[in-house]
């Protein structure tokens, strides 16, 4: 394991302005919070000294790791192991010990199709519908998202007045909760909503945006792009700002056209960041749930039913719960995510190595 983790290509330090905010936060928290905390910290010091004398610094390392690793173990690693066992059992029982072992039957059922191009011929037609919807969603959403985020980043990277204001404009929806995002857009896209009120004066017919299949799907794509655009634009903007200015000055002196500058300088130098952003966006898109669920509830019919919602429905929400099947589906989805994450880590590490060479 290298000294620095691949998630952070360059060791990142919070900016200097943090100091002021930290001072503010400290003041706000004040004595009310720090006094009991300090008291508690002092109280556990004597027993810890004893522990340190008995076990040495190795024991202290174990002590510091214990709380976090215990939570990790019980709530992340253990479930992961159980998930595999779960996916090979059947029945509605919740606890593993009460469940009947069926081997790979759940996987077989998920993958049982007469014709893989037609979900309705599959034993689990909803799974294949969700899979097809998710695949289409991932392709369309990620490509549109990357294009708009790149355009936004390029524009924010220009010499603008009030740049931090414009940056805030695009970033603002990122912090909103998915439920709020879903509700805002449900309100705008409903039949008597703002969007229809705006298009009627233009001479267009009102559309039932969330009730017509294709429009609902487009709405799910549009709304998730609206919510995440600022996040990716920001990472790309950081990448753009890291490109040395003298390259552009040299190009200007040579009288290079803007389009050529973009294809020959900006894009190649932005590529490492672009790749990371694409994979991050892919990982998010495969798991799409919150915004789409609040917006359309998976409907109309199954037009916007995605994989995570399928797992949720099969495992928890439907009357005929089948946790084993849900576990099998989640493992298939997890496999895709693991591959994507490994690609991301590989790219980050390669970027890091290149960074060192410079």
């Amino acid at each position, binding site marked *: *394991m290298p000294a*620095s*983790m691949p998630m952070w290509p360059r*060791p*990142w330090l*919070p900016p200097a302005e*943090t100091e002021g905010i*930290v001072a503010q*936060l400290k003041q706000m928290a004040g004595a009310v919070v720090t006094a009991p905390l300090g008291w508690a910290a002092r109280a556990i*010091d004597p027993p*810890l*000294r004893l522990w*340190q004398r008995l076990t040495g610094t*190795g024991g*202290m*390392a*174990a002590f*510091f*790791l214990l*709380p*976090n*690793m215990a*939570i*990790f173990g019980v*709530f*992340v*690693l253990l*479930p*992961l192991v159980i*998930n595999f066992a779960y996916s090979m059992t059947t029945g509605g029982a919740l606890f*593993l010990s009460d469940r009947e072992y069926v081997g790979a039957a759940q996987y077989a059922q998920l993958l049982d199709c007469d014709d893989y191009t037609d979900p309705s011929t599959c034993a689990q037609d909803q799974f294949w519908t969700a899979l097809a919807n998710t695949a289409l969603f991932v392709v369309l959403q990620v490509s549109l998202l990357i294009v708009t985020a790149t355009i936004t980043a390029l524009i924010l990277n220009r010499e603008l*007045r009030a740049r931090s204001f414009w*940056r805030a404009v*695009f970033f*603002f929806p990122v912090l*909103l*909760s*998915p*439920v709020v995002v879903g*509700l*805002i857009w449900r309100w705008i896209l409903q039949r*008597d909503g*703002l969007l229809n009120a705006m298009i009627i004066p233009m001479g267009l017919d009102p559309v039932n945006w969330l009730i017509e299949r294709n429009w609902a799907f487009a709405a799910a794509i549009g709304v998730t792009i*609206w919510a995440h655009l600022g996040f990716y634009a*920001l*990472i790309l903007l*950081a990448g753009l700002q890291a490109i040395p200015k003298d390259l552009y000055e040299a190009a200007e002196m040579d009288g290079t056209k803007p389009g050529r500058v973009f294809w020959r300088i900006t894009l190649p130098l932005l590529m490492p960041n672009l790749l990371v952003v694409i994979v991050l966006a892919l990982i998010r898109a495969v798991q799409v749930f*919150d915004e789409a669920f*609040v917006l359309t509830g998976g409907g109309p019919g199954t037009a916007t039913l995605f994989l995570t919602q399928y797992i*949720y429905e099969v*495992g*928890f929400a439907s009357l005929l719960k089948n946790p084993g099947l*849900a576990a099998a589906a*989640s*493992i298939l989805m*997890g496999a895709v*995510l*693991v591959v994507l994450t*490994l690609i991301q*880590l590989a790219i980050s590490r390669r970027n890091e190595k290149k960074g060192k060479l410079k």
Partner: protein
Amino acid sequence: MSRVSAFLFRRRGGKGWHWTDVVTFGWLFFGVIVMFGPALWLIMSSFKSPAQLAEFPPTALPYESRTVVVEGYDKPLPLFIVTDEAGTRTLAEVRRVGTTAQMVDPANSGEIQRVNIANRVPDRQVGFAWDNYVQPFLAFDFMLYLKNSVFVTVVATLITLLTNSMAAFALSKYEFRGRNAVMLTVLATLMIPLSVILVPLYSIISAVGLFNSLWGVILPTVATPTGIFLLRQYMLTIPDELLEAARMDHASEWQIYWRIVLPLTAPALAVLGIFSVVWRWNDFLWPLIVLSRKEVYTLQVGLNTYAGELNVQWHFILAMTVVTMIPVVIVFLFLQRFITTGIAGSGLK
């Protein structure tokens, strides 16, 4: 106005306009409308009465009908501006039968006039339906949801900061066998988002009796790998000599962590704290699964439940959505620059 536009549209170089400048400002203008517009529309709609919300096409501002108390009638009557052969005048409506309204002149309440409803428009003024905000606090369990959300957010953030910083301290300042294995494990968990382990996690939560408990929402989310990485990265920059000096003075390891390393890590802790607050406040899928009783709903789950009811009461939902937005908007307004530099530097989300 012209000074504002001169300020916004002046280019730094002071050169003439190029087609790329047109594209730039077109995109920025479009961005302001599309990004801010929906939230603004939500806020304005949240102040409209149910009757106004049902109107189509909608008005931009919330309005309320003017009313008047007329002698001989118990309730205040709504006013309308009537225009017909008899001229334009303001009348109060007593009742409506089909397309005919029975109206009275407020000044002369004795005589009932019959008016075709096509000949009149409501007399309205800009007014805010504050009731949308007051009622959910009184009649719904909104206050309870708010309390639950605050509890989850605060407790989860505190636990996250404490456990993550302890682990990061061990991973950055100690040499011990298995350190790389621990780092690898943490790294591996980056690949396992919650949506992949929903079913088994649910069975574990049930087995330890945390189903329908806020602790069942809190615990699985606190051991964030991103938090450990962020803090470890920062702690690596703290010189080891500082720790050695403290050890010379017989400081215990706990004191070194608590009195030296933690205060020096404050900027990174602040970043993680802010992100944790936003994450936990916005969490939806996991609370949706763990919480099935109304008393333990968080705001996000409660809002979704209201919005999923057969008879959606938009006037309340819009107001509650605005309230749910407030903490995040406050965080955004005060710490925007700080968060954006944090994301740009670390890819944190």
